[in-house]
């Protein structure tokens, strides 16, 4: 290295950073005090930033629809099994070989997708929110216990009007 550079380097190494102003030191030490309080602040600071209000409302609506869907699916399932019982299969009558009976139906909320903005024919802007579900059905063979499971993806598009005034 050039002797001049060596000299400058040496000069720099001889310099030590200045002490912190007392006021600043005190202020920073205050951060470490009341640590419990800071930790609770910390937890608050890290809270999840939720979806905007409109999307929260939409998500709640979708969950409600999903719950209703599951309820009706179960009701249908129950009705159909009752019908079968009353019309064809009696308690004493043996099940036919390889007969599968539905045992479960689920409607699971998978996620939400932003579909952007739409403009209707009336020039009203809508915000499209697509909700994705997974419908699963389970049949069981009472004879040998074998199961058939079917999963069907489904989705519903909601158009939420945007307030422009």
């Amino acid at each position, binding site marked *: 290295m050039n002797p001049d550079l060596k000299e400058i380097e040496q000069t720099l190494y001889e310099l*030590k*950073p*200045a002490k912190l102003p007392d006021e600043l030191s005190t202020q*920073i030490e205050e951060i*470490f005090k009341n640590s419990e309080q800071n*930790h609770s602040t910390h937890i608050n600071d890290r809270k999840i930033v939720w979806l905007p209000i409109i999307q929260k409302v939409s998500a709640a609506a979708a969950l409600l629809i999903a719950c209703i869907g599951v309820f009706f699916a179960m009701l249908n399932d129950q009705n159909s099994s009752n019908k079968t019982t009353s019309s064809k299969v009696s308690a004493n009558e043996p099940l036919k070989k390889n007969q599968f009976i539905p045992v479960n139906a689920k409607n699971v909320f998978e996620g939400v997708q932003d579909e952007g903005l739409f403009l209707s024919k009336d020039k009203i802007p809508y915000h499209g929110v697509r909700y994705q579900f997974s419908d699963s059905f389970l049949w069981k063979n009472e004879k040998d216990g074998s199961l058939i499971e079917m999963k069907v993806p489904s989705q519903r598009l909601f158009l939420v009007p945007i307030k422009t005034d």
Partner: protein
Amino acid sequence: MSEESLAKSWKEWFHLNGTRLLLFARGKTKSEADAQDVLQDAILRLWKSYSSPKDGHFDPPPLALAYTALRNTAIDHARRTNRRTKREQNSEFIVRDIDQVENWFETSSLEQSEQAKIIRDALQQIPEKFQEVLTLKIWGGLTFAEIAENLNIPANTAASRYRYALDALRKILKPNSI
């Protein structure tokens, strides 16, 4: 680790590294007040991220991470300050900062104080990317490998920037030497 010993270890860490962190912050900001604000914000960020027993972190962060936090805080601070400056320029009431000129280095004599001032002024004149490497190497306590990792550059580039920084300082401090 108890809350008390946690705070104690952080205080010790800060006493050990506070001066070099403030020096780095001074190089990243335009005024002493900004440097102190940036240091305070960065320490608060680090404390919040690293001192929570819930996350399993107790110890103060590695020094290299503290420099990264300082750099990011300085960038955020500069953005805020720029916005504020623009607002103030558009406003009828212009607020001017009265900056205190602080000594960046410890001095025990008038001569040393003068030399420290000259070096401080020279450091402020060289390109920021050179000054950053120089500060981290000489006063920051980092190796070239650590500087390279911290700045996300190859180690050779860090070493080159260090030499360029020294050369740039030479041109300012000793303009007549070859």
